[in-house]
């Protein structure tokens, strides 16, 4: 089926060329980083993880959210989602690819990455993260490919695939749980030291991922002859509505515990993010924007009148995506490092090359996604006799 990615319209080639251009700019920046070291980024002794790890964290969530289409279809036999499981799984494949790349570009000694396998260390959560992420990637590649192939040949998917599909459901939850454990088990970081971190990660993931999927469905409908379906989009919208609501609720739980207990180590980070600390607060407007957008999106999505209006729905999905991205892709990681364990406030701002490298990784993700969607949609068009 791969050959279907090789032929396409002018627009398809143009889009791919644009992505490749963005990727090559980032690649040059990466070569510079490779030679000079991570000193070309805005990271420091105090904020030792920055934009890369934040993107990684956000994207693990997007990857995990494929379970929101897989679970209703395979466990509850919700037939409508059968049409779009493939889109969810392909999105997961592209997202995990980006996750792995973001970890890679963040390493100080990338050529030694195999040391993680040569000296396996089960007490390190990073070791487990490597296992669950690669496992999830493999599961989704195999499942999506086999299901699509069966669909094309008009036969049922092979029986041996079923157990893998069932495993992929808890596995999706595991990737974001383990990713949260990277942070929430660290003794000196009050911002992350909370049992609700993994649930918070999951709730924001199940909002951001399906919101993106809705937008992708709309794009597919606009530019191809395959229609993912109105019902499917509306069902996804309900998932987004309640996930984003739960996400805000979890956040408020966190706020209550932190500010009612008044433990400074836990308060300082939230104060830094939302009002600024000792005159430092680059993220303050961003964090408030994120909160306001989340509330707006809840209003738009829970209310059936606005949710059912597809123009409003698009706006709401963009709102959800942007607000959860700010929350995780900007605030979550550097917020945990400011103030530092000695209560010094040293802020972090990404540099231009750092941002270009990040954009390039996103572009690689979209390249993978475009190729996979192209294949998937062409097959679907053929089945429907549209192509």
């Amino acid at each position, binding site marked *: 089926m791969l050959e279907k990615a090789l032929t396409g319209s002018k627009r398809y080639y143009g889009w791919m060329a644009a992505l490749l251009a963005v990727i090559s700019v980032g690649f040059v920046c990466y070569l510079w980083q490779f030679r000079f070291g991570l*000193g070309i980024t805005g990271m*420091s*002794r105090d904020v030792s*993880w920055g934009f890369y790890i934040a993107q990684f964290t956000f994207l693990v969530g997007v990857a995990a959210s494929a379970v929101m289409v897989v679970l209703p279809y395979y466990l509850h036999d919700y037939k409508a989602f059968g049409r779009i499981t493939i889109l969810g799984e392909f999105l997961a494949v592209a997202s995990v690819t980006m996750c792995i790349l973001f970890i890679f570009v963040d390493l100080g000694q*990338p050529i030694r990455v195999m040391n993680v396998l040569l000296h396996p260390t089960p007490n390190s959560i990073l*070791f487990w993260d490597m296992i669950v992420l690669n496992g999830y990637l493999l599961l989704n590649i195999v499942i999506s490919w086999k299901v699509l192939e069966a669909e094309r040949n008009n036969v049922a998917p092979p029986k041996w695939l079923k157990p893998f599909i069932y495993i992929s459901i808890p596995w999706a939850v595991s990737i974001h749980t383990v990713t949260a454990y990277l942070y929430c088990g660290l*003794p*000196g970081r009050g911002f992350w030291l909370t049992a609700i971190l993994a649930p918070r990660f999951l709730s924001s993931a199940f909002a951001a991922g399906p919101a993106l999927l809705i937008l992708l469905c709309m794009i597919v409908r606009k530019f191809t002859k395959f229609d993912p379906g109105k019902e499917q989009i509306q069902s996804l919208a309900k998932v987004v509505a309640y996930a984003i609501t739960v996400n805000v609720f979890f956040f408020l739980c966190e706020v209550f515990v932190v500010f009612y207990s008044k433990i400074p180590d836990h308060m300082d980070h939230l104060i830094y993010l939302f009002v600024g600390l000792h005159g430092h607060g680059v993220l303050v407007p961003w964090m408030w924007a994120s909160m306001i957008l989340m509330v707006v999106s809840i209003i738009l999505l829970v209310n059936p009148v606005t949710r059912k209006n597809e123009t409003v729905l698009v706006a709401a999905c963009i709102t959800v995506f942007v607000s959860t991205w700010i929350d995780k892709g900007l605030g979550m990681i550097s917020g*945990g490092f400011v103030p530092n364990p*000695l209560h010094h406030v040293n802020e972090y701002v990404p540099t231009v090359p750092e941002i270009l490298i990040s954009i390039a990784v996103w572009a690689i993700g979209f390249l993978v996604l475009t190729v996979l969607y192209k294949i998937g949609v062409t097959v679907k068009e053929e089945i429907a006799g549209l192509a």
Partner: protein
Amino acid sequence: MKSSRRKFLKIAGVSALGLGAKPVLDVLAASGEHEETSKPEIMKGKDALIAKRWAMVVDTRKIESEEDLKPMIEACHKIHNVPEFENKNHEIKWIWLEEFKHEFPTQEHEFVDERVKHLPFLTLCNHCQNPACVRVCPTKATFKREDGIVLMDFHRCIGCRFCMAACPYGSRSFNFRDPRPFIKETNPEFPTRTKGVVEKCNFCAERLAVGRMPACVEASNGVLTFGDLDDPESEVRKLLKANYAIRRKPALGAGPSVFYII
């Protein structure tokens, strides 16, 4: 070879490269008469200082000003090839000074007496009993030796910086760029580092291995005392018995091996 080098690191205490390895390394080759010991055995150097759990006591009563502490910092950074950067983001430090409110943020209050409030505190790796950095490292590049010293294998570190996020004392630095051009005077007895790896204080493991006290202790004029926490007769134990001493962030349970007599 690789594993024997590692074992050597652990036991003899030269933290990298095995510089000066030969005098303290006595490998019983697995040949002929030593058939039952197929693995090479490593003996400690004959002058090596050994302990069950190394610890340091800082007697802050003997400190008047920063000037009393600077020689210790200089001695350490000089022999360990610690570079000096102008860009604060790239900063590397093994041992440095902090005010009370930063050194002991959970013990700080507005009525701390004037002396303590303005006293510079020596800050370094605590060589914890339960080191979070060791727990999180995905490659065992940072590890705890039998004598309690937490060490780094600069050749194994992949630079993921998980250990920096895990350390509750901010003791670790990362080589954001090649440090070599920024070392004032390279000490050939100790390895320089490459870009992309983490480093920190090593309790002068390489000096203990040849019978010498840590450089900062030697330069401290009696402010610092170094010894075996497991030995009731050691100098550190005597000091701790006679004086009330505190540790940083005790509530975290990391079990620091650096004590401060206030």
